[in-house]
């Protein structure tokens, strides 16, 4: 099974599948945040998808 850490490592190494899997994994969070006054905002949803991709690039994996 792919762990979040493995997917992050693969996504950071330009793995599109892993990045897509991470976006899918956080889809409920994005859907929830995309509702404005009870209406789904498609533009906001797309912005949030880009934010997730940006976060994958920027997140620094801690050395535990």
């Amino acid at each position, binding site marked *: 099974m*792919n*762990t979040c*850490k493995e997917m*992050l490592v693969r996504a950071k190494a330009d793995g599109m599948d892993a990045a897509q899997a991470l976006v899918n994994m956080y889809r409920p*969070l994005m859907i929830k945040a995309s509702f404005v006054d009870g209406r789904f905002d498609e533009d*906001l949803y797309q*912005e949030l998808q880009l934010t997730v991709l940006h976060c994958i690039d920027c997140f620094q*994996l801690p050395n535990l």
Partner: protein
Amino acid sequence: MVEFEKTIMFPKNDNIGEINIIQNQFTAYLVTAVRRRRKGYLESKAKQERYEIPLTAGESRRDAPCERVMINHLHLQCVLEKLKKRELRILTMKVLKGYMLQEIADELNANCDAIRSTYYRTLKRLKGELEDK
């Protein structure tokens, strides 16, 4: 699709062990980023709607006549009335309709430098009059 469903099935995260800690850190990082992006998006959208000129169906912003622009600020309205017709037209085209100075010059058959100096002179005059009051 089956592959996707396999990847999202995670065991219960009890925040014990490296994998769970990293996942929780990434989730917290993402939640903050999403919240900030949402706030920024809503603020920019609200700002856009506040200054938006109401248009009729099928009319683009550039086609809307200048006269339709609603100016509620009474004092600003008085100051604008003192401007020459040409100055007011240049100011409205630049500020409210978003034309470039070159486009205004083409439309009014004038030199771009002349339009630029008129525009900045008008702005300076407006600022001066508004600050005096």
